[in-house]
């Protein structure tokens, strides 16, 4: 029987959203086919409720690597053990979220097995056992459709690409494996600095409020932070706002920044240069607030308000506060 392996990530005892989305999608598909879902969870400690969560997505087998060595990501430690899991189970597809870990681990494993990898997938079509993956290239100006022929392929999925699925509970077979002894100490993780603020991760956020040159100063970003707090959103920025030193590089959305696909993207005072559009054009709904009616951002916006963001944004924040209070 064909197998699909999903390598999931978790935080604070819960699956990361992108892992949940992949499992949901795969489980919808596997219900109508003969394929088996294997889920690999690793970590220093794996919370009990994670098993329930994974089981609720129709996993047939849950493989755990519960070990101190797997507390922090280190490719030199991860590859031998995970490669072993792949060898023993010979899945047809191996899925990762397109996250810091997935992006790094997946191509290394793909090379280890001399296999193809399909990066940053936003859609999957399945026809009679054939998989067709869609991924944006050239900054979203073109879509590449990749059809595989059944051999082992590694796939990373962009967060927020799949909607919610219906749970489908199974009683999976659960077993733990021990990490392989490490002989390679060439890559050492000497420290991990967590960002001070509980800053929301841009690439996983469902809603993003983003600001550009129109914000005029670093201080004015407070307006967007307030709006973001009401919406439970992350705050992004255009390249010009980052270049001006108003926001950190890590918050830049665009061709040389983060690529995001939230449910709702609110662009404030962003003109919409090609470089920015490359990072956000696959968002589900785009709202633009800009003074300049000619700004190219209005070409991609689903809803555009032509007006002064310093007048509009505070009103929007207040109105949303009222709604969320009810």
């Amino acid at each position: 029987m064909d197998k699909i392996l999903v390598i999931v990530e978790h935080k604070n005892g819960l699956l990361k959203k992108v892992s949940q989305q992949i499992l949901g999608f795969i489980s919808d598909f596997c219900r109508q086919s003969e394929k088996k879902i294997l889920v690999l969870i690793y970590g220093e400690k794996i919370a009990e409720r994670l098993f329930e969560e994974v089981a609720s997505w129709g996993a047939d087998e849950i493989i755990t690597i519960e070990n101190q060595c797997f507390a922090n990501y280190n490719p030199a430690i991860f590859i031998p053990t995970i490669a072993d899991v792949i060898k023993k189970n010979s899945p047809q597809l191996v899925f990762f979220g397109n996250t810091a870990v997935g992006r790094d681990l997946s191509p290394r494993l793909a090379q280890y097995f001399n296999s193809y990898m399909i990066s940053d997938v936003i859609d999957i079509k399945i026809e009679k056992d054939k998989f067709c993956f869609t991924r944006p290239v050239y900054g979203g100006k073109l879509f590449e459709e990749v059809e595989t022929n059944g051999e082992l392929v590694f796939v990373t999925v962009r967060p927020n690409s799949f909607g919610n699925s219906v749970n489908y509970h199974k009683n999976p077979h659960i077993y733990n494996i021990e990490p392989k002894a490490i002989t390679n100490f060439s890559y050492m993780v000497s420290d991990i600095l967590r960002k001070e603020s509980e800053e929301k991760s841009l690439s996983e956020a469902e809603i993003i409020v983003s600001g550009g040159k129109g914000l005029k100063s670093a201080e004015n970003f407070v307006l967007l932070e307030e709006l973001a707090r009401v919406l439970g959103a992350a705050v992004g920025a255009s390249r010009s706002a980052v270049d001006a030193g108003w926001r950190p590089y890590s918050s830049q959305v665009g061709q040389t920044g983060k690529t995001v696909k939230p449910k709702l993207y609110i662009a404030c005072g962003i003109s919409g240069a090609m470089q920015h559009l490359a990072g956000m054009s696959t968002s589900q709904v785009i709202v633009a607030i800009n003074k300049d009616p000619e700004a190219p951002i209005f070409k991609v916006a689903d809803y555009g308000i032509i007006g002064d963001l310093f007048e509009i944004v505070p009103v929007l924040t207040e109105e949303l506060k009222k709604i969320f209070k009810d």
Partner: protein
Amino acid sequence: MKILVLVKETFDTETKIVLENSKKINNEGIKYIINPYDEFAIEEALRIREKFGGEVVIYSVGRRESEVTLRNGLALGADKAKLIVSEKIDSITVSKLLAENITKEEFEIILSGWIAIDDNNAQVPARLSQLLDIPLVNVVTKIDFSDDKIICHREGDNTVEIIKVSPPAMIAVQRGINEPRYPTVKNILQAKKKQIDLIISENNEDINRINITYQLPEVKKAGLIIDGSKPEKAVNILIQKLKEAKVL
């Protein structure tokens, strides 16, 4: 210190993509640039050379004409360039060609951008490091040297990982690591005389076991434009629409 920098030639970011057919992108009249992430890698290599001395060699795989683009890298200050001419530039082929040629070199560091803006694959650094059997630190925003170790800041999801590796090592850099310089007139003139070695690849093996086609995105239908001269009214219309679209 000998530093190799992997450079990919890409379409200019402002390029409008036109398809010849579902398999081929029309490249008539395209303006080419160095992949912006690779520019950060060149800049970082130059800074390391300025500190420790040594040599910066650009490596690229691509069409013969990309020599022109590679000259721009030499104009920034790299010492020489090697171009492996290949029609196929998928990640697997490129990594293999680079590995075959780089194994012949003595080097301390390989630098590259962590992703290319055209194919969005981000696979070559990982594949090449596996083939060469050297450590790779991926998505790096800072490089320091201490004793015989290279200390990198690697971007995680909301974290910064401090990674230590020993040379020879590969480092794939992220935006934020530096501000690339502009070429000086003197360097532009010198670049004309610098050496670009052409290496003709004999890799004709067909590894196309997957089928790739292209599709242009559907043209988005025009959105709703709301007059914002009365903020309250505009905001109410927007909220109503967002509720209807079920995003609120």
